[in-house]
């Protein structure tokens, strides 16, 4: 069942991300919706599952919107899933500010890792605009906090609806 939920999350995030790129292309500069499944799994389940979810989402995203370096988003999201999953296991990040910080930092680190990997493969880099990075961090943080709150509510509703096993 966990695989079905993961695939559903990845599909929704990918569809929403591609839809955003079609309806409001300018918004793709400030937010990466495909980051959300990886963050949700890092903060709610385990380090390993967040790495696998991040890698899968990244590879699917690469196929559609990466012109040259197929695998770059897969690698970046795997590393971020490992880092955030590790932090999530050590600290309680399931508060509003914890979630906000997690979302903001992965959006910032994503930019840095992408730039580093592109440089490694000989690509030219665009100058980094600090206001854009700041907006990206705030948007990513708020969105992550909102999505985790919704997922938390859904999880609570699901466990309440599930029939309880009676003791013999």
């Amino acid at each position, binding site marked *: 069942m966990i695989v079905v939920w993961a695939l559903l999350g990845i*599909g929704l995030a*990918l569809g929403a991300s591609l839809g955003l790129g*079609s309806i409001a292309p300018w918004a793709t500069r400030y937010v990466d919706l495909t980051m959300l499944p990886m963050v949700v799994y890092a903060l709610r389940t385990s380090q390993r599952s967040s790495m696998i979810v991040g*890698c899968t989402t990244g590879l699917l995203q690469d196929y559609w919107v990466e*012109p040259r370096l*197929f695998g770059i988003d897969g690698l970046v999201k795997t590393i971020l899933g*490992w880092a955030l999953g590790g932090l999530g296991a050590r600290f309680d990040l399931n508060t509003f500010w914890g979630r906000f910080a997690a979302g903001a930092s992965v959006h910032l680190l994503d930019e840095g890792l992408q730039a580093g990997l592109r440089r490694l493969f000989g*690509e030219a880099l665009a100058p980094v605009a600090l206001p*854009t990075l700041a907006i990206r961090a705030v948007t990513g943080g708020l969105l992550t906090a909102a999505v985790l709150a919704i997922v938390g509510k859904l999880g609570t509703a699901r466990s309440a609806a599930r029939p309880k096993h009676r003791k013999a």
Partner: protein
Amino acid sequence: MAAVSPARANTLLLGVMSFALLLLMAASVRGGVAGLAVAGAAGTASAPIVAAERSITRIVLDVIHFFRDIDADERENVKLRREVARLAGELARGGELSQENVRLRRLLGMREDLVPKSVGASVVTSRLSGQSRIVLVDRGGSDGVRPDMAVVAWGGAVGRVVSVERDFARVRLLTDPNSGASGVIVRSRVEGMAVGRGADPMEMLYVPKYADVVVGDRVVTSGLDGVFPRGFGLGRVTLVGAPIGASKSIRLEPEVDDRSIEDVLILLQPSGTRLLTPEEPEVRP
């Protein structure tokens, strides 16, 4: 045998996955079979998601366009009436110029192919992140689209096709930091290379420091890169800074706003330098 702790096992898994993904990236750069196979699998797996996304997006866009059109129609009407009056005068003048153009071309023994063969395409999705600027269009190899073809929109050059699948193609925009097109300043005929800088204005390189360039000059494709035919708008000069070495420092505001591209034309003939061809001799009975 001592059990490996979960944290160490995950670090080991990270190492293995990172190594595999770096190999995959290297393979995709070289066009290797492994890269193509994994990319193909990713494409097949996510194709239903994209099909569903396109259907939903189309409905959303139709609703947005409907409301935008209601508001815009009234203003457009007034604007168009003024435009018709202005164009009537222009048309008369254009007729004169056209005749003169034909006479001069005959004198030069040349003719110009102004309408390259093209195919229209709609943008499926875009990615305008800091380091990568790309659009996905709904025409691919089955429509005759090939890598390195030029893509234009109303107003000017958009980018070039970088990879093609059966039903869609990826287009790297001119504002991408790895993009470039040879350009010429319309007023002074000074040539240079317009390159992308992500979200920042484009830059025009290799313009001699003594060249005549001022803010507001329009830059169009020169056709020398062999991809874009000449004459498509690239941008307007917004800044002429202090020279760096032997070159002027020039910034361009792109002619086509890549945040609002919806439909494009893919030029099927790479006619960069082949616009001017000798006129065929007239055959007389």
